[in-house]
């Protein structure tokens, strides 16, 4: 185990200890801690610092950083690296995210473990590069064509930028699926004190390897009970084939068979849906006896929390439900909570995206939406006013 | 000044000296030389006429010089042998006496007179007088000429890489001249490389040749162009422009001749070098000691024909990656000063002699096949095995003169076969002493140094020499043994001998492709078909064309020693030229009389050397003297008398015609003969003492193309009974193709004669090579009937020919 004193000489993979750092850097360090050794990206505000930090750190620890010609290529390279057996990621923001959609689809179809960090900014199009936003939440869910389920995590602190990036990799490896870290400009650029655990205390998950030896009958997409196929990688002798076409368990194209299409696409969805319980994480604050609930994620959740505290100080029974996992959406948790509260307040830095999911889950319980666009995040009092409002 | 002026102005001060030569009895034997001399004295402007025994002797030459000085002679005529022999001698004499050498003329009263009319002294004498009259008439009109000097390129081209070519190339290169050695085959070495041992010394042929071959390969001054052919030779002595086609080997110079490629090649064919006794592949080297050692791909055999590579076995086998099917043929353009033709010879193919059964009986083979068979490096590893059963025969018969000295093959003796057989018989004795060996011969010719000893040795070793060739060979179908049947002409008894193997001692014949080189270098050939030297005695290695020399079997059948000797001689001759660095070319070139030229370009069209440019703006042509070779076909073509030939002007030729026809023209044949073929042919008739009628008067032109219709018409107008125009055979023309114009002109004349009702047979056209003395003689004989048939009326009619024309 490396001690703090020797750490100066030898570049450490995990920079354990308490340090003061930014969200983007914490994200990068989290990736390294999770075992990421390949980063392909393209400069874009406000995610650039992740690339820059990876460019500095990866060579030190034997990894590869490459700046590709665009985000399409970055995403393709990430898939390639993952298929060559290396944990890989990319980081971008709205415009780049759009370009990545094509190969995110490929990653979904070929069940490629990889992590895509989207430090959200104001859109559409080039929008406001240096301003925060939460506008890509739905794109993350539906952006690529076709039917699928993905996983997205929403950090709301620098600490979480580290922790959730580690978790993103673990989920990607567990379910063979691209996992998004949906941060935003504020969290990405924010500096906070964080604690990085010792390497061995950080839980790392690696993809399942095939238990059968290489053979002509090897079926690279034959799932286990958890619906996730063990993953062979290039160079191990399995001589397997993967394609973006609808394929059978051998990985061979099945472009005419309805049965094959149903079988494959169903499984791609189900391997996430049926493991929801294990995937979804929500954080509750003072929700037990709450009469008014706030549902918020990312940066908005921080203002929401102080709003709830202020409300309690004024004797209003308010509480907070924060989906840490944005996708799959924590429908049950919200539904249960909705049955107990009088109303739900949903602040989002967009014109209404997650709020639709909340409304769907809340059924009759009224939902008040607090949109926010541009430079400033929500102020706690704005949310408090909304809480007071529904209290009347 | 115009010709007329110059003539009239000369007339006053012309002082001509005439010398009539006895040439021992060569001339005096059938010509009354004193009488001819006395006659000469009576001719206009002749200030002195003498006869002497040998005009070409030192005293003879001194006498002429003395006379030129003392009697202020400004023109000289020597009546003796052919100008082709001694004109240079007497021209030099004139020059030494301060007289321009172009003011000299010869009357050929030996080859064209005394020798061909041995038994008609009177008629011969009369003809000699005519010939002198003609010479005097011409000399009176001759003008001093200055010869132009041209530089000589210091580079030699040797065509043929046999032992002769190799020797010539090495000698020239060692002298310090750049040499291009062009060889058709993939390797140099030629026939000598195929032979096992050489006579009479019995040393290993390739062992003594190989070092020379590699010397050639390494020599800094030699550029070796194998697998190459001469495409074109333009220009003239010292300044040839030669095009050589370098055919691709498809293997680069980096080839280490490791031989890994050949065995994997899937296609095979009989190996030419081993005369088909061994097999080779499409990629091969002809023999172990080949130079260059680089392998070569026979694309006709190789599977990779067109633009695609179907088979890559050799490419794969070649570690050094030297095989490149993409190499393209290239044409090199070389500036050459001198050329040595050493193209060698073929061997006679005895298949045509059915009675010997070659190609029918497996155990009948040629002496060349024998060489490969007996050669330790050959297909049988030196074992003398019979193809029928691969066994060593207990008896062997050699048959001499196969294809030589016989009507069925060639008439000449091939020179090497006797000694070669003797050598071969000894080789057999050396390895298998008990073998019974018969040699059936016509004569044994062991003329050379050490030859007789070898012959004796063979007899001592028990080789049986039987005089009288077998009339036929009969094969025992089962055993493939051979019965030889013939007559022993010494014992006058029939023999019937059984042997295990027969070796046909085949002769040497001219290469089938000789005509190509002949055309390229404008050479002549003897009736045998070998290339003819400029003079059989005095210039034996010079070709008639300046700057071209001959070596080896291309000139005549000869053994290795003679080939090497001749090669060194040729190299020496070429070196002399190049060492001088320049050469003077005869001033016999065309001359423009600008006032008459209308720019009609007729001349330009017929010039074989593109020596005439058209200057449209001036409506005139201009002549390029350096390129002009002096055939004169331009002036013959010019309708406006705007071009004439130096030393063969219209006036000079008219004068000769008039002189020839001064007396009883109606009995005479006026013959125009070209210098290189017909005139030389007439000389050859003389040398061979072929007798023909005396009434022919030969006028020499450089080329039959010089013979303008007006000359023929002049002859008829003067009442000549018949006219002969004679030149080289088509293809042999010394001026490429000028004689085609001759043909056209004569045909035009024939039409004209028919139109005006003249018997066109009175004008004859004949192609006579320098070797065809016989043909000239017979032509003249045949023409007698015409001469006799011509009536006085016809003569009168033809006298008006010119006016009508």
């Amino acid at each position, binding site marked *: 185990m490396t001690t703090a004193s020797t750490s100066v000489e030898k570049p450490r993979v995990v920079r354990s200890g308490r340090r003061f750092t930014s969200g983007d850097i914490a994200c990068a360090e989290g990736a390294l801690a999770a075992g990421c050794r390949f980063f392909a990206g393209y400069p874009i505000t406000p995610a650039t610092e992740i690339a820059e930090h990876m460019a500095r750190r990866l060579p030190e620890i034997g990894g590869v950083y490459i700046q590709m010609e665009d985000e399409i290529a970055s995403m393709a390279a990430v898939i390639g690296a993952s298929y060559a057996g290396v944990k890989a990621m990319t980081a971008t923001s709205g415009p780049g995210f759009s370009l990545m959609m094509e190969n995110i689809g490929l990653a979904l179809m070929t069940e490629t473990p990889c992590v895509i960090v989207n430090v959200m900014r104001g859109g559409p199009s080039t929008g406001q590069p240096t301003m925060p936003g939460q506008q890509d939440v739905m794109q993350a869910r539906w952006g690529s064509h076709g039917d699928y389920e993905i996983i997205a995590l929403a950090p709301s602190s620098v600490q979480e930028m580290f922790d959730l990036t580690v978790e993103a990799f673990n989920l990607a490896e567990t379910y063979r699926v691209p996992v998004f870290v949906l941060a935003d400009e504020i969290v990405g650029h924010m500096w906070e004190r964080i604690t990085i655990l010792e390497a061995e205390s950080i839980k790392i998950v690696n993809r399942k390897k095939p238990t059968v030896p290489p053979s002509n009958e090897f079926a690279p997409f034959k799932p286990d009970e958890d619906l996730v196929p063990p993953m062979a990688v290039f160079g191990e002798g399995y001589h397997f084939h993967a394609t973006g076409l609808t394929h059978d368990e051998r990985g061979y194209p099945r472009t005419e068979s309805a049965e094959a299409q149903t079988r494959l696409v169903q499984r791609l969805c189900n391997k996430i849906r049926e493991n929801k319980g294990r995937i979804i994480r929500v954080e509750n604050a003072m929700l037990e006896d709450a009469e008014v609930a706030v549902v918020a994620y990312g940066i908005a959740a921080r203002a929401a929390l102080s709003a709830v505290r202020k409300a309690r100080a004024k004797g209003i029974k308010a509480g907070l439900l924060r989906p840490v996992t944005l996708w799959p959406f924590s429908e049950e948790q919200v539904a249960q909570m909705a049955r107990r509260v009088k109303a739900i307040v949903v602040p989002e830095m967009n014109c209404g995206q997650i709020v639709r999911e909340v409304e769907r889950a809340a059924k009759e319980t009224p939902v008040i939406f607090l949109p926010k666009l541009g430079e400033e995040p929500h102020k706690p009092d704005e949310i408090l006013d909304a809480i007071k409002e529904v209290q009347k | 000044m115009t010709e007329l002026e110059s003539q009239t102005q000369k007339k006053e001060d012309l002082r001509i000296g005439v010398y009539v030569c006895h040439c021992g009895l060569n001339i005096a034997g059938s010509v009354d030389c004193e009488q001819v001399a006395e006659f000469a004295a009576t001719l206009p402007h002749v200030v002195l006429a003498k006869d002497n025994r040998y005009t070409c002797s030192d005293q003879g030459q001194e006498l002429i010089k003395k006379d030129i000085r003392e009697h202020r002679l400004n023109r000289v005529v020597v009546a003796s042998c052919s100008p082709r022999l001694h004109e240079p001698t007497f021209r030099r004499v004139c020059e030494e006496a301060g007289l321009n050498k172009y003011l000299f003329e010869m009357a050929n009263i030996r080859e064209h007179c005394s020798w061909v009319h041995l038994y008609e002294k009177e008629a011969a004498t009369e003809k000699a007088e005519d010939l002198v009259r003609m010479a005097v008439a011409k000399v009176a009109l001759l003008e001093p000429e200055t010869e132009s000097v041209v530089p000589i390129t210091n580079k030699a081209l040797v065509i043929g890489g046999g032992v002769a070519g190799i020797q010539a190339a090495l000698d020239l290169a060692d002298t310090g001249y750049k040499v291009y050695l062009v060889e058709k085959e993939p390797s140099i070495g030629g026939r000598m490389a195929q032979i096992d041992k050489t006579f009479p010394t019995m040393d290993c042929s390739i062992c003594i040749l190989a070092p020379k071959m590699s010397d050639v390969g390494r020599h800094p001054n030699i550029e070796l162009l194998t697998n190459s052919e001469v495409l074109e030779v333009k220009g003239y002595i010292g300044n040839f422009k030669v095009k050589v086609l370098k055919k691709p080997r498809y293997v680069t110079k980096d080839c280490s001749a490791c031989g890994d490629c050949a065995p994997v090649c*899937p*296609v*095979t064919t*009989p*190996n*030419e*070098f*081993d*005369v*088909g*006794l*061994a*097999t080779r*592949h499409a990629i091969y080297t002809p023999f172990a000691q080949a130079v260059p050692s680089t392998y070569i791909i026979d694309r006709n055999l190789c*599977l*990779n*024909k067109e633009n*695609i590579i*179907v*088979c890559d*076995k050799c490419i794969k086998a070649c570690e050094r990656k030297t095989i490149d099917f993409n190499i393209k043929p290239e044409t090199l353009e070389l500036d050459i000063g001198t050329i040595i033709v050493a193209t060698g010879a*073929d*061997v006679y*193919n005895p*298949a045509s002699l059915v009675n010997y059964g070659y*190609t029918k009986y*497996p155990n009948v083979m*040629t002496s*060349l*096949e024998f060489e490969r068979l007996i050669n330790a490096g050959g*297909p*049988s590893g030196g074992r003398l*095995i019979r*193809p029928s059963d*691969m066994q060593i025969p207990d008896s062997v018969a050699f048959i001499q003169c196969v294809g030589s000295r016989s009507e069925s093959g060639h008439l000449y003796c091939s020179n090497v076969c006797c000694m070669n057989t003797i050598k071969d018989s000894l080789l057999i004795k050396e390895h298998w002493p008990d073998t019974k060996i018969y040699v059936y011969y016509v004569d044994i010719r062991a003329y050379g140094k050490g030859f007789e000893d070898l012959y004796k040795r063979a007899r001592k070793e028990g080789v049986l020499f039987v005089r009288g060739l077998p009339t036929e060979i009969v094969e025992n179908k089962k055993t493939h043994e051979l019965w030889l049947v013939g007559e022993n002409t010494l014992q006058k008894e029939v023999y019937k001998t059984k042997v295990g193997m027969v070796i046909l001692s085949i002769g040497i014949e001219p*290469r*089938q492709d000789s005509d190509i080189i002949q055309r390229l270098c404008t050479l002549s050939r003897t009736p045998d078909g070998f290339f003819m030297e400029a003079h059989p005695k005095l210039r034996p290695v010079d070709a008639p064309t300046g700057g071209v020399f001959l070596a080896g079997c291309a000139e005549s059948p000869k053994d290795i020693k003679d080939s090497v000797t001749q090669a060194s001689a040729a190299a020496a001759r070429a070196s002399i030229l190049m060492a001088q660095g320049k050469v003077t070319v005869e001033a016999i070139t065309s001359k423009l009389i600008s006032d008459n030229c209308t720019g009609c370009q007729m001349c330009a069209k017929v010039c074989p050397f593109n020596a005439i440019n058209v200057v449209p703006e001036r409506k005139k042509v201009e002549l390029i003297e350096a390129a002009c070779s002096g055939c004169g076909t331009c002036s013959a073509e010019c309708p406006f008398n705007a071009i004439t030939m130096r030393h063969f002007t219209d006036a000079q030729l008219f004068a000769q015609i008039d002189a020839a026809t001064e007396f009883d023209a109606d009995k005479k044949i006026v013959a125009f003969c070209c210098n290189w073929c017909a005139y030389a042919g007439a000389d050859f008739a003389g040398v061979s003492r072929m007798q023909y009628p005396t009434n022919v008067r030969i006028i020499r032109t450089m080329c039959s193309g010089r013979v303008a219709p007006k000359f023929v018409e002049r002859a008829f107008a003067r009442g000549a009974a018949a006219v002969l125009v004679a030149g080289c055979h088509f293809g042999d023309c010394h001026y490429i193709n000028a004689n085609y114009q001759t043909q056209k002109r004569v045909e035009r004349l024939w039409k004209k004669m028919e139109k005006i009702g003249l018997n066109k047979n009175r004008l004859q056209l004949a192609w006579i090579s320098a070797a065809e003395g016989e043909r000239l003689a017979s032509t003249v004989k045949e023409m007698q009937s015409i001469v006799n048939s011509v009536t006085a009326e016809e003569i009168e009619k033809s006298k008006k020919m010119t006016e009508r024309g």
Partner: protein
Amino acid sequence: MPVKTWRRPLDADKVKPPKAEVHVLKDRCKGCGFCIEFCPKEVLEESNEINERGVHPPRVKDENRCALCGFCAAVCPDFAIFTTEKNCKEGC
């Protein structure tokens, strides 16, 4: 060189090119005809039988002509033809 070679070379047996065996995987053939068209020895021809794919696979006209250059195998888009050297131990 002039003398026409008419004899069977003495080493004819030693350097005899190996005998070939042409293998056609009939049902793989799609009938493009490249092997027939580009065989330098014209060993192949179109057969009149019809394979699974409904085309006429090539048939060997004269196996002895085959020089084993292997171009048929190299130019076949369908891995349907190849040649091997005949094992001539048992003589062929």
